[in-house]
């Protein structure tokens, strides 16, 4: 292999293995999909897999900020959700506009521009009793601006929040509580009807891409699956490059002894801010890919519990090893949708029936405790023997 990237891959074969497995997985799903192959992977399952890849991407971000930098953020799903909202606004606006224009063509009297705008407004905001566009929708008709906002809004929020928190040297559990407060405050704000983002209804119909109404979902689901796989591969490579650089060493040193790093002359706050903001942006991109596959986003998605789940995925998968985060997110989120989706057979004990929909959380809680106590390195830790040997 040639070039600096090739050298990097040879030095860290686990990256090559990961990207290889991800490509293989993508090919298998493509061959099995209804759109391109034999159809043994249903469209709804393609969506589930695509969404799982997005969870893996945000788990990588969580591993960088928590596993490597030692910041236990319990608010990264806020950035994931904001990314989803930003792309969702364009999807919803544009699709509604096309519907309104379509309807207008059949009308006897042509509609004025203002009438069209009003009709779109009524369509979107009628559910919260309004028809005017709130200020936050100012750019919703511009795809590229809204796409930029996917990274800018969560990025700037993380920058401001992180600057305030790190500058005051808030660390450890206090910082975790602060991040929980941030995501809770954001969720509560979005729940309000006058937040401008349709309150608890959230944004819906996001699976329908504007202008592609005649394109089958089996095809669209594959596009998003590929995009998610590509983003995950890119995110993995980026985070791996960072943690293996000298900056990675400094970041790990901050995790282990922040005060000592200061006396080495590194401005710890700037480093934390960089990692916090970067991971917020990665989370936002994951969210922007997730919600068009989920079809709907509402404020409940960024409730504090979501970010706690994220920490649980990474802890079970294994902190401080990026593939661990991927394994944790994939295994736990897929198991979760299996158990809570009603597919898992209930267990009848005669006097009591274990319904997995209710008991899954208990099972997850118990596994979390067991992993924390007995397998602190998580599932990913089981692979350490191979990777450490190969990468030294």
């Amino acid at each position, binding site marked *: 292999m040639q070039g600096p990237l090739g050298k990097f891959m040879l030095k860290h074969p686990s990256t090559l293995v990961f990207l290889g497995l991800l490509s293989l997985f993508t090919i298998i799903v493509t061959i099995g999909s209804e759109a391109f192959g034999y159809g043994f992977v249903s469209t709804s399952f393609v969506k589930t897999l695509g969404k799982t890849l997005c969870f893996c991407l945000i788990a990588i971000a969580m591993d960088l900020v928590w596993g490597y930098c030692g910041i236990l953020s319990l608010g990264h799903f806020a950035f994931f959700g904001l990314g989803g909202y930003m792309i969702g606004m364009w999807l919803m606006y544009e699709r509604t506009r096309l519907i309104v224009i379509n309807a207008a063509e059949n009308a006897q009297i042509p509609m004025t521009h203002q009438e069209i705008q009003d009709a779109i407004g009524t369509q979107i905001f009628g559910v919260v009793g309004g028809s005017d566009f709130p200020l936050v929708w100012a750019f919703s008709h511009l795809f590229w601006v809204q796409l930029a906002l996917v990274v800018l809004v969560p990025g700037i929020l993380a920058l401001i929040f992180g600057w305030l928190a790190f500058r005051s040297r808030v660390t450890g559990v206090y910082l975790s509580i602060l991040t929980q407060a941030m995501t809770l405050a954001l969720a509560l704000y979005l729940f309000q009807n006058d937040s401008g983002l349709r309150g608890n209804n959230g944004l819906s119909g996001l699976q329908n891409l504007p202008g592609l109404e005649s394109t089958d979902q089996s095809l669209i689901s594959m596009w998003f699956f590929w995009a998610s796989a590509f983003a995950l591969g890119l995110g993995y490579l980026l985070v791996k490059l960072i943690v293996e*650089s000298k900056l990675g*060493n400094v970041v790990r040193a901050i995790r282990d002894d922040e*005060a*000592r790093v200061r*006396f*080495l*002359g590194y401005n710890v706050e700037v480093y934390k801010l*960089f990692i916090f903001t970067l991971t917020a942006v990665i989370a936002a991109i994951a969210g922007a890919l997730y919600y068009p596959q989920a079809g709907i986003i509402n404020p409940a998605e960024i409730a504090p519990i979501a970010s706690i789940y994220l920490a649980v995925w990474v802890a079970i998968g294994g902190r401080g090893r990026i593939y661990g985060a991927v394994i944790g997110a994939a295994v736990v989120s897929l198991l979760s949708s299996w158990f809570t989706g009603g597919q898992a057979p209930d267990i009848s004990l005669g006097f009591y029936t274990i319904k997995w929909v209710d008991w899954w959380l208990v099972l997850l809680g118990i596994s979390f405790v067991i992993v924390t106590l007995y397998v602190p390195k998580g599932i990913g830790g089981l692979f350490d023997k191979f990777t450490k040997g190969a990468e030294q």
Partner: protein
Amino acid sequence: MSGALLEVDGISVSFDGFKAINNLSFNIDSGELRAIIGPNGAGKTTFMDIITGKTRPDSGKVIWGEENVSLIKKSESDIANMGIGRKFQKPTVFEDQTTRDNLTMALKNKRKPWAVLFYHSNADDRAKVDDIADEIGLSDHLDRRAGDLSHGQKQWLEIGMLLAQEPRLLLVDEPAAGMTVDERNHTVTLLRRAAETRAVVVVEHDMEFIRNLDCKVTVLHEGSVLAEGSLDHVTQNQDVIDVYLGR
């Protein structure tokens, strides 16, 4: 003398009414080796905290270098970059990383995240790391996890990290704690050699160690200077005998 490298003038600091440092003044010249002794609670560590920016004094001045910069409102990292290195009482090296990574991180280089992210190891830096490893006797341990080193080796690694920072003033807190006799002798040699090119301040309890350092001694007591001079001079001082040696 054209002015001290570090000039501490009348600093005081109290924690919850307890005066940890009380109107303390202290000067050190470039290239000077100095030992600070004093009973527990004399304010030795607080004194270092103030110089390195960890603690802000309630009053007084801390003036650094030829340009007479005040250190009082500077952050820890700024002070470190201005040329003051600090070694803690308990060895604090980054145990998860190799000796080489520890030293490379400490090497005097750009400290901004962007420069650090795109840092590429070069022959110059590798040679510096090898030299320091040689000096601290860890050449054969460069690729070991720092956590696997012995207690004494960790202390040396930390001194090596300080040397790598190329500071003009080294503050060393109890370097000999928990060391064997041989290790102590090696540490004395290291510090004396370091003092040839920079100022070194050593806080230590061990009198034999201080005697081997063979330098001017400052005795602290209840947050201020009790006596200053050669070891023989201060050990004959009646005040010093009363509060420190006599017990």
